[in-house]
């Protein structure tokens, strides 16, 4: 028992990983080389034809661009807001624990609920946001009907949901910055803005890099917020690669092309993870 316990643990791990993650991922990639109208029909080998068709379609490039705009803006806003929140919540004040707790809450909500609550708040006639804007004499916003507004809506929901992640990690990071650095800078006459840019930011750069790299790509692959908020509309204005892939596979019944699109976005992810390990090599005592 003693001798076999660790190898047995590892064997179970390798087996489960192969069965649940590696196998399905390879299977998904392999589907992209076949013509397959449904999962029960016989696959027909088409080689790289699906990729050629995908790369030649305007829809793909629009979805790629939409994904870059969505993930880019969402991650930048999360980082800026999250850092701002963390800097404020790092200051001592009465009720700080409560505000820190409240600032974490959105992270706990299922995406569905955040989207539903947003839709309820901006509902065209009954929503509180609509009513307040009307009272203040502001023109109504058609949150899901115009292209820019729809993109803003999906970004708003995403930023609201995931800012707490940046706030919390940055706040934990702030507590590790040596206070002597600040004292020395203050003695040297550096104001709060210079202290932030010359001490806080450089010390916390590794955290920021991880957030921008890994979560940026994660946003790029995030399916549910956009699917539930706009479904990719209006007329494809918020359709990014995951939605295009899902729609192609399940509503146009072209699983091969759907898989090809998924594989392409998977390549971007792989590149980001590769970069991550270049920037943060694993220690040797693993």
């Amino acid at each position, binding site marked *: 028992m003693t001798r076999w316990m660790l190898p047995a643990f590892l064997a179970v791990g390798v087996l489960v990983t192969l069965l649940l*993650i590696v196998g399905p991922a390879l299977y998904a990639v392999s589907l992209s080389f076949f013509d397959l109208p449904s999962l029960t029909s016989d696959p027909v080998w088409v080689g790289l034809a699906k990729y050629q068709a995908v790369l030649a379609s305007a829809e793909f490039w629009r979805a790629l661009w939409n994904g870059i705009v969505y993930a880019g803006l969402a991650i930048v806003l999360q980082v800026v807001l999250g850092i701002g929140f963390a800097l404020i*919540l790092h*200051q001592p004040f009465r009720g700080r624990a409560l505000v820190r707790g409240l600032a974490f809450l959105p992270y706990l909500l299922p995406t569905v609920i955040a989207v539903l*609550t947003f839709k309820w708040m901006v509902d065209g006639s009954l929503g509180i946001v609509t009513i307040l804007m009307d009272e203040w004499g502001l023109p109504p916003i058609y949150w899901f009907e115009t292209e820019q507004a729809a993109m803003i809506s999906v970004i708003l929901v995403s930023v609201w949901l995931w800012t707490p992640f940046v706030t*919390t990690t940055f706040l934990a990071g702030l507590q590790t910055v040596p206070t002597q650095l600040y004292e020395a800078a203050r003695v040297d006459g550096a104001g709060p803005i210079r202290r932030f840019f010359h001490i806080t930011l450089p010390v916390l750069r590794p955290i920021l890099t991880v957030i921008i790299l890994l*979560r940026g790509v994660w946003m790029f692959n995030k*399916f549910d917020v956009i699917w539930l908020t706009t479904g990719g509309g209006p007329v494809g204005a918020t359709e990014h690669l995951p939605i295009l892939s899902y729609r192609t596979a399940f509503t146009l019944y072209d699983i091969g092309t759907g898989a090809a699109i998924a594989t392409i976005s998977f390549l971007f992810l792989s590149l980001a993870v590769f970069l991550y390990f270049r920037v943060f090599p694993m220690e040797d005592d693993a």
Partner: protein
Amino acid sequence: MTPAIRRPAARVGLYFAAFAIALYSAFPIYWMVSSSLRPTQELLLNPSLIPSELTLQYYYSLLAQTDYPRQFLNSLIVAVATVALTMVLSVMIAYGVTRQRIRGKKAIIAGMLYAYMFPPLLLAIPLYAMFTKVGLNDTLFSLVISHLTMTMPLGVWFLWGFFKAMPFELEEAAMVDGCTRLGAFLRVVLPLSVPGLVTVAIFAFLLSWTDYTFALVMIGSDVNKTVPLGLASMIGAFDLRWGDVMAGSTLIALPLFIAFILLSRYFVQGLTAGAVKG
């Protein structure tokens, strides 16, 4: 510690900013909860910021007239099973990787981070195909297995850091004293790992409980829907009953809020120590 800001103007600014953060973060949640408790007239005609009277009518109609109780039970079954399997598997793998002398350990751990970043859709489609072939499609079991693809890599990644930091001497001492390796593991390592285990359990629960994407692909029939899927299908319904929807949303958020109040330390710890997704 950061010295407190003392100038009065700056203090006012600080409190104002803190208030703005609280409002931004909590108002939508307040609005969800308060909408679920308003009488219909007020909900639809005159939504004042503070409800004039509270009623549980939407909760009654939600629980008595819809599939919500069934969906809630489904969500609970899936989440609990996912947590249990995640704990067993990730403890075994992480412990094996940190204590066994083998080549390629780094590759296993790096692979776990990689797997953890996999987009749900990439795995959902082939998993669905595989479950269809063996006749297990549209079952809660298939959903548990698909949730494991997110939670197990997270668990291994997190516990690896935890076990790695725990000195080998502890188990060695126990084994010198006559414990078997399994005994040392169960009596020494696991009890010392409780904080790490709690964190993994929380995040596994959170990922499973809030999942929509896997459920969308895996589950077709109404009896097997989880709450996120059930609530989402209410959006498309012809008469959108906002009161019911907000009551359903509040009920599914409630366990998470309670867990957060009781265990916030573990949430923060898990988030800062390696949860890059979710």
